């Protein structure tokens, strides 16, 4: 642009401002201009997305909104390598949203770590996360970071195949009231109210939210019994004590009721009825960020997680003659079952950040975590187990010069049930040209068995009666999940070659990686023969370190911004899992799609209308706990093609903002993404058209 044009535009711009400018009230005196708290402290700026030791994908607030996601897993579909399924299974288990990265996953997704603001939320008993019961609303999320691969030294225990770190917005953002409602088919009624404000140096925000829908439909028509009803209350306080010290306090309380389908298993196994499972969860987190000086800062953090699940019912009548011919004379048996449990987690952690000079950065820390679970059903006969985990971790970043960087990380972890485990990480960066990096990395991590894997035992017993009322003192049915005292942690060694770069003045950013993951001592629980006398049919599920696999592949992400109004986000993933066992274990080999692809396009029309369209392609795969009993082997989900559309309009009402959106999901027809009816390639439930409108208003 020539200087004359620049002059004209600058002057015109200023003139317009002068003509149209309303009166602005100063919110504080000039005397405060020279007294600012430290915001970008060492720990805040520690992460540079282009220089993280492992590939890092970010889903920002705009992407979450544009995707039309109603749940966090909906948004996670935008990450290459991630697959989302909805389990309504033949075991009569609680329906779960299953998020899997590079396969190897059953309904509990236990091979990844999920954190909210640095607080790990995976369940210590069964592993995994109940995404219906996470006490956070999408509108309070600033971004979601997904680390591809093991990064235990940064994120701690269970950071195995991937890490999902959900970061909420600072309480100083989004001040005022916000009311949002969603109404749609499948009985979708979601409501959210949020209020945020400040008193001097204290910023606070609290959010109330309800979520309701009738879940999925059955294949062939009719509503499946998987309705969800949830309510949460969460809050965040950020207090700037002085310019160097900041306190953050968050808390939540949530209750979720989920309908659960009856068992569809063969008659030889205990059958569970339709019922409602209630989860209550709560957390408290306190965090102290302190800037010691321009080179050092530290973080001291404590959090407490609480989860209580109530699931007590009577089984459907069991024909004992089908269980054991010798029991033919006895009446059908109804078992009282109480699968309720309560889990608690306490964690305290100290992290110290040091920048010695422009070239070296150190981080080190220690933490202690206590997990305790109370369950008469899963932990028979002890009923309660408590486990302590101690961690010592550190990270060194050495910028040799402007072109070369080395990043070393180490975690030493010890639980009171295991020997110590060491998880090292090494990455090398080559900044070969401005805005272009190559990254080579190797990292190792372990996954400590969950409490149920390590110590779980389930036992049923009942008194048998026959037509004469004669009682037998034999246990009727006994499925034993035997604990194996020598159960080892699972291990992963991950190699990666990555590229990260930007083009056309940062309009296009590209991230690509080649990877190879070796997984060993994978824990699985086949139904095997046992000589334990309690088992009337001589079979039980037993956890053991049984398998090993190699996963290879490539992932590519593109983010293209055109003229600041149109944005394309494209992801693709090619994954191949090879079983290293003999005979080959096809459970894992088919647990990830060989090809998956997604594209999200967003466009802003004059700051009034926005539209977005998302297309997802997921190749066929099957989760590891999906079984059929026919001779053809595993049943795949089939290729899934999904198309979502969102159109929104913003209104200005005085000084306030009102927005309305229409979201249509699964426009390309129905599909099943998790399970199948036994002896049939058809799914039990299907994802089909979701249509809802969303209205949001912000006011002061």
């Amino acid at each position, binding site marked *: 642009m020539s200087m004359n044009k620049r002059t004209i535009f600058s002057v015109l711009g200023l003139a317009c*401002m002068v003509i149209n400018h309303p009166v602005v009230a100063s919110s504080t005196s000039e005397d405060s201009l020279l007294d600012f708290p430290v915001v970008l402290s060492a720990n805040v700026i520690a992460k540079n997305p282009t220089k993280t030791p492992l590939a890092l994908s970010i889903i920002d607030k705009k992407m979450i909104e544009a995707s039309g996601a109603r749940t966090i897993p909906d948004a996670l579909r935008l990450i290459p390598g991630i697959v989302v399924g909805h389990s309504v299974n033949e075991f009569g288990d609680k329906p779960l949203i299953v998020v899997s990265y590079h396969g190897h996953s059953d309904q509990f997704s236990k091979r990844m770590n999920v954190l909210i603001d640095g607080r790990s939320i995976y369940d210590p008993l069964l592993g995994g996360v109940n995404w219906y019961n996470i006490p956070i609303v999408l509108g309070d999320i600033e971004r979601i970071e997904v680390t591809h691969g093991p990064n235990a030294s940064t994120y701690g225990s269970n950071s195995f195949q991937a890490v999902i770190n959900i970061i909420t917005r600072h309480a100083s953002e989004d001040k005022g009231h916000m009311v949002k409602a969603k109404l749609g088919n499948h009985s979708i009624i979601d409501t959210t109210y949020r209020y945020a404000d400040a008193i001097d140096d204290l910023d606070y925000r609290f959010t109330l939210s309800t979520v309701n829908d009738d879940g999925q439909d059955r294949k062939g028509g009719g509503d499946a019994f998987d309705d969800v009803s949830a309510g949460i209350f969460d809050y965040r306080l950020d207090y700037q004590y002085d310019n160097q010290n900041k306190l953050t306090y968050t808390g939540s309380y949530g209750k979720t009721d989920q309908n659960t389908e009856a068992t569809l298993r063969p008659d030889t196994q205990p059958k569970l009825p339709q019922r409602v499972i209630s989860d209550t969860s709560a957390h408290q987190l306190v965090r102290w960020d302190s800037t010691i000086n321009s080179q050092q800062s530290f973080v001291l953090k404590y959090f407490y997680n609480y989860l209580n699940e109530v699931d007590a019912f009577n089984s459907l009548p069991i024909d004992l003659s089908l269980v054991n011919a010798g029991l033919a004379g006895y009446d059908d048996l109804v078992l009282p079952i109480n699968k309720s449990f309560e889990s608690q987690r306490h964690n305290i952690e100290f992290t110290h950040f040091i920048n010695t000079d422009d070239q070296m950065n150190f981080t080190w820390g220690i933490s202690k975590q206590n997990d305790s679970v109370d369950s008469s059903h899963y932990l028979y006969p002890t009923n309660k187990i408590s486990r302590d985990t101690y961690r010592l971790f550190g990270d060194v970043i050495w910028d040799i010069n402007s072109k070369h960087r080395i990043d070393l990380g180490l975690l030493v972890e010890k639980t009171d049930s295991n020997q110590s485990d060491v998880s090292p990480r090494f990455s090398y960066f080559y900044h070969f040209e401005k805005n272009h990096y190559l990254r080579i990395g190797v990292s190792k991590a372990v996954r400590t068995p969950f409490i149920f894997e390590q110590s779980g035992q389930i036992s049923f017993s009942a008194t048998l009666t026959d037509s004469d009322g004669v009682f037998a003192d034999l246990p009727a049915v006994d499925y034993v999940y035997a604990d194996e005292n020598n159960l080892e942690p699972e291990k992963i060694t991950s190699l990666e070659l990555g590229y990260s770069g930007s083009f056309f003045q940062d309009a296009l950013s590209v991230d690509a990686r080649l990877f190879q993951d070796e997984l060993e001592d994978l824990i699985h629980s086949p139904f095997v023969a046992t000589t334990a006398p309690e088992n009337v049919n001589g079979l039980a599920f037993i956890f053991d370190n049984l398998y090993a696999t190699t996963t290879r592949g490539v992932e590519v992400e593109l983010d293209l911004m055109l003229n600041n109004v149109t944005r394309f986000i494209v992801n693709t993933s090619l994954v191949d899992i090879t079983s290293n066992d003999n005979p080959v274990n096809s459970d894992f080999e088919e647990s990830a799609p060989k090809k998956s692809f997604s594209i999200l396009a967003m466009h802003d029309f004059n700051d009034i209308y926005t539209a977005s369209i998302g297309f997802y392609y997921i190749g066929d795969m099957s989760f590891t706990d999906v079984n059929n009993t026919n001779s053809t082997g595993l049943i795949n989900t089939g290729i899934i093609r999904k198309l979502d559309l969102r159109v929104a309009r913003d209104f200005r009402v005085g000084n306030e903002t009102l927005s309305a959106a229409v979201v249509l999901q699964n426009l390309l027809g129905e599909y099943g993404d998790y399970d199948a009816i036994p002896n049939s390639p058809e799914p039990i439930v299907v994802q089909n058209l979701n249509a809802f409108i969303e209205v949001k208003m912000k006011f002061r």
Partner: protein
Amino acid sequence: MDVMKVKHVVNLKAFFKLSFVWALLCMFSLNVFAQEKAAQSVAIVISKNNNFQHQSSKVIQDELHDANIDSVILYSDELDVALESHTVFVAIGEKSIHRYTESGINSPVLHVSNNTDATINHNAKVSHLLISQHPCMQLKLINLLNSEWESVAVLASHSSLKQASNIVQCAIKLNINVLVYSVENSVDITSVLEKAISTSKVILSVADPSIYNRYTIKNILLTLFRSRVPVIGFSESFVDAGAIAGVFTSPGDIGKTAAHLVIDFFENSKQFKDTINYPVGFTVKTNRRVAQSLEVDLPDEEDIQSELEEVEGL
């Protein structure tokens, strides 16, 4: 013996006469001197809890002392004493000038503040000493830090329109593209900032407390950092908070400039030469951690300082 007595008496009388005259002369001189001293008395008004103002006032006092001018430091919340004996006031900050105005004092005042619209007694002779550096200096800093930062965004409210206007005029001279974004109220800051981020490589901050204050600064810096867009700060505190760099006036520089303006005032028949004054001397500070994280290679602070000192004619 009688002659001696007389001579002695005569000598004593002369002595007393001389002494009396001498005393009169002394008293007269002292009085003149006292009046001159009173005519060169300065009251420096500051806020009690402001560290920057404390440091500046101390430097002013030391400089005036070296020039044999009396001064006293007063706190704005204690400004209820009769102050007609002070020839001129130096009011640092908005609080000080407001209290000065409320006190009804009519003496000339040097207002040390960026806010030239602060309420001042219309009968008083007023001169302003701005705290911020000249906008051309800040734009030159941007050029020195990274020549690829061709598009610069400035957020301005109604009260910082003049500053924005000065920046635009300098930008024209320096051939830099500056876009000014209007902030109507504090609720708008984030949305305006996001628009600015989408069009600009760097944000140049103006000393406007309705936009940048300790309550909004967290949101602003976090939003900019997530978008990988640096901000040029206007104070040392801002750079420490997370701005990538800044050129600003230290308390010492403000103090020295203010003191010299007061000395000139007395030498100029108790008149301020100019209504608006810029501080002499500046300090450059960079935040290398932030620069490293944003992958910006910054020159050394000393090199930037010396290059900026060569700037002329702006």
